[in-house]
């Protein structure tokens, strides 16, 4: 099987002309981290827009009291999918897009440690995303919140397939994420260029490493929770059945033991991006590099010790509440340290006021607000008024949208020239920024007050006469403008593709290795692997001999060939999930068969062929 299988599946073009040339098949079988990064990015942005649409529908419904625009059933699906989509199908893959494209370049490598595993991670994510969203067409999307509390998610209270779509989709996404994280850990540990010690690594690579460790340690907790829930739903076990001695709180603990590190998984890459941009656009090195690195590590560690701050209203008792309040407050310290170091980097610099810096500054500003509301929640007693209200919704969006999305947009404006070889319009970028910044604040700032004035979250409507009307209307209007601001970005991207100026290797005068390659980089990245002697290799004076731009006398390095097996393996897993969803055993077996064929083909196919 293996030999013919390998030859049959290998197919595809070995085009070495351009980084992105070749037809659809070459993209389906690619194992090139740059192409995989592009695919992650495009998929993630698509799902970001989809999650945004879900949000706009939510805001339309909440724009007026007792509105009948959207019924509660649809509303509950919308807010569930909005959260699930934004967390798992937008922000995480958007970060993954950058991990993929940028990290190997930043560490002076030709690809990740396991290129086919990388392709597998992408395809599994992509298929899982389609799987979960297919629910809209087959009986309705999941509707018990992105956090799916037991026992609302039991078959008794959530009959039908909706929650099964959610459980299976998330389990598959977990496999995808863990596989990708394992890949990046090995890549960063083992494929760094000569001379690049850990303390010379770019900050973005550091944050990728830390995030990857968070992923491999946190995801198993939710995997177990999901397995318990799946067993309850499919096999009638009693894990979350209070009548049989089961404890619904076990779900909450398992979910949040994953869930809190998850928010740092969402955040740290953005922190990494901003830590790259600020020094470059200040024309001076990052202030306190080591402290910024250690802060990231500390945040990751402490992130595992704060989960029950999501459960302050559960009645865990004064000891638990005190401990978790304390650890939650503690985590504010390394976070603050990072912010101060960024400001210190700006201080005394010569700020290049271009779009990537605008978004980075917007990030810092909004993140300060989100972080401060976070400190307010950290007080377990005060949180009894805040939890489960719009005050939390405001906090979440200040850190995840005002924070992470602004940072990721900064990354997009910063690195798209490297990825496509063309410049985006700075004018349109700044327009995008201002409209986004203002409308974001109009949307979410009033929500702090809505929460404090008594509006709970996850409610499909609210009664008139409670004072919620004006602020909800303001929030809705803001959200519409916020949505529209994305169109400016899309227009900018389209314009760039048609007639963007060539970017050249290093349009921003960056200091890290990705800026030493052409834009876009050739498919092998570096003909000769670089040697570094400092943290900012392109700024240091002694790098003359270690940077070899594409030297025509050096032959092109051999790169791993394309493979269909990663996609096939991913298809096998999704088929198994579909079989489990519909409880049809034959389909599960077909999935297993496809999976095994994929795994064997992959294992027996040589890396280069």
């Amino acid at each position, binding site marked *: 099987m293996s030999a013919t299988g390998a030859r049959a599946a290998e197919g595809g073009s070995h085009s070495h002309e351009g980084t992105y040339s070749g037809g659809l098949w070459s993209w389906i079988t690619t194992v090139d981290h740059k192409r995989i990064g592009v695919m992650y990015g495009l998929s993630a942005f698509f799902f970001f827009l989809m999650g945004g649409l879900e949000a706009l529908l939510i805001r339309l419904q909440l724009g007026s009291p007792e509105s009948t625009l959207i019924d509660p059933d649809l509303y509950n699906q919308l807010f569930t999918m909005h959260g699930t989509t934004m967390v798992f199908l937008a922000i995480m893959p958007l970060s993954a897009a950058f991990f993929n494209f940028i990290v190997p370049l930043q560490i002076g490598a030709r690809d990740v440690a396991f290129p086919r595993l990388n392709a597998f991670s992408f395809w599994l994510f992509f298929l899982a995303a389609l799987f979960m969203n297919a629910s809209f067409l087959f009986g309705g999307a999941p509707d018990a919140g992105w956090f799916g509390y037991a026992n609302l998610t039991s078959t008794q209270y959530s009959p039908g397939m909706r929650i099964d779509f959610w459980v299976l989709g998330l389990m598959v996404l977990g496999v995808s994420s863990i596989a990708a994280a394992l890949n990046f850990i090995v890549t960063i540990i083992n494929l760094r260029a000569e001379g690049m010690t850990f303390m010379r690594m770019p900050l973005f690579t550091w944050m990728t490493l830390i995030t990857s460790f968070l992923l491999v340690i946190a995801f198993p907790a939710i995997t177990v929770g999901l397995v318990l829930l799946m067993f309850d739903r499919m096999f009638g076990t009693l894990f979350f059945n209070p009548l049989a001695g089961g404890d619904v709180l076990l779900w909450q603990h398992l979910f949040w033991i994953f869930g809190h590190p998850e928010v740092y998984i969402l955040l740290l890459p953005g922190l990494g991006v901003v830590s790259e941009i600020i020094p470059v656009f200040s024309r*001076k090195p990052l202030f306190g590099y080591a402290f910024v690195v250690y802060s990231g590590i500390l945040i990751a560690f402490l992130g595992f010790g704060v989960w029950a701050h999501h459960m302050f209203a559960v009645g865990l008792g004064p000891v638990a509440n005190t401990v978790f309040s304390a650890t939650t407050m503690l985590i504010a*310290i390394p976070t603050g340290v990072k912010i101060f170091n960024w400001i210190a980097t700006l201080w005394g610099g010569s700020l290049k006021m271009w779009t990537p810096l605008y978004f980075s500054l917007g990030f810092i500003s909004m993140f300060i607000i989100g972080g401060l509301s976070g400190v307010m929640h950290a007080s377990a007693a005060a949180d009894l008024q805040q939890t489960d209200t719009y005050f939390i919704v405001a906090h979440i969006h200040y850190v995840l949208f005002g924070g992470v999305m602004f940072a990721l947009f900064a990354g997009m404006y910063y690195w798209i020239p490297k990825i496509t070889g063309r410049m985006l319009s700075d004018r349109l970028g700044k327009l995008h920024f201002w409209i986004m910044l203002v409308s974001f604040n109009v949307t979410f700032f009033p929500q702090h007050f809505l929460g404090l004035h008594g509006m709970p*979250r996850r409610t499909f409507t609210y009664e008139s006469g409670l004072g919620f009307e004006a602020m909800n209307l303001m929030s809705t209007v803001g959200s519409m403008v916020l949505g529209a601001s994305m169109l400016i970005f899309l227009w900018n991207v389209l314009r760039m593709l048609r007639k963007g100026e060539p970017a050249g290797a290093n349009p921003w005068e960056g200091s890290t290795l990705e800026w030493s390659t052409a834009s876009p980089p050739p498919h092998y990245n570096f003909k000769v692997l670089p040697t570094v002697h400092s943290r900012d290799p392109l700024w240091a004076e002694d790098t003359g001999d270690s940077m070899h731009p594409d030297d025509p006398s050096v032959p092109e390095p051999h790169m791993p060939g394309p493979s269909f097996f990663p996609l096939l393996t991913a298809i096998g897993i999704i088929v198994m999930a579909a079989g489990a969803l519909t409880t049809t055993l034959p389909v599960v077996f077909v999935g297993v068969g496809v999976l095994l064929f994929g795994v064997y083909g992959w294992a027996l196919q040589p890396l280069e062929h």
Partner: protein
Amino acid sequence: MKRGRRPTRAGARTWTGPLLALTALALGACGGPFPQSALDPASDFAWRLQDLFEGIFFWAVVVFVLVQGALIVAIFRFRERPGGPSPKVTHGNTLLEISWTLAPAVVLVLIAIPTIKTIWIVDSPPPGESLVVEAIGHQWWWEFRYPDLGIVTANEMRIPVGQQIDVRLTSADVVHSFWFPRLGGKRDVIPGHETQIWFTVDSAGLYLGQCAEFCGLSHALMKMELVAEDPADFEAWANGQRTEAAISDSAVAADGAQAFMQGGCIACHTVRGTVAQGVIGPDLTHVGSRRRIAAGILDNTEENLERWIRNPQDVKPGALMIVPELDNETVRRIVAYMRNLK
């Protein structure tokens, strides 16, 4: 660098954005009055949390002003100027790092101390004597029992002003959360567990509450009301609640009683003193005297009762109340009976 850049113009263009943002911020706080507001405390519990919050808020504003201020100053002071000198290369300053690690730590300690004090008060059992009320969350209504007073009611809780109330909470189905914002924080209501919340209301009045943990289709429609009244008034109410259902005072109501008892109503509802002893739905013995029906979402009027009885799912999607087809006359009679149950 390849592309020359004009320095950005200071002046009107630069300030519009931030100014707009500021205005939006200011507007965000309007839209009152706010009858369900946590910022309008009316109990000892609520006051404790308010005081704590105000202290934290103060520090948050201080930090906000300092850090945003530093950021804004940095942005304006250090923008690139054409022909300006290259920035001095600095890599760090350990003293600064230590300072700005310790400073936030100090602020956090100042927040942590009142936090911990408050936690140990509110999360400990209530001191001294309390009136115990059991609150049981259902999809999508609240059951209230006063074990020491022999009272069972639903959705409307009445208590004497100035009396410490000890609420024991649990759920009959999924996780809900018990929350009267003006009376303090919320407490989740968890099947298989008993949780607790306690408070003393300081002034008479009507307090609005709402379920605060997503519990399914009609989570947004699971409300409750608390009436704090003079101890004498409360006594009167309690005595009234303890009595069995009122005898119908009119023919219509009597017909309604009959329709009620013979219809499926008794499978779910209790009307003490009659054959209706169902426990799935709210106790209706004194439903006529409640301000609202259907868990705080409809005023207790003839029209609303009719609307509810005719088609509960229309009012509250997913409601478990199953009503057969009823003709108008029957509905009218049952409504009359309900209104009679004071």
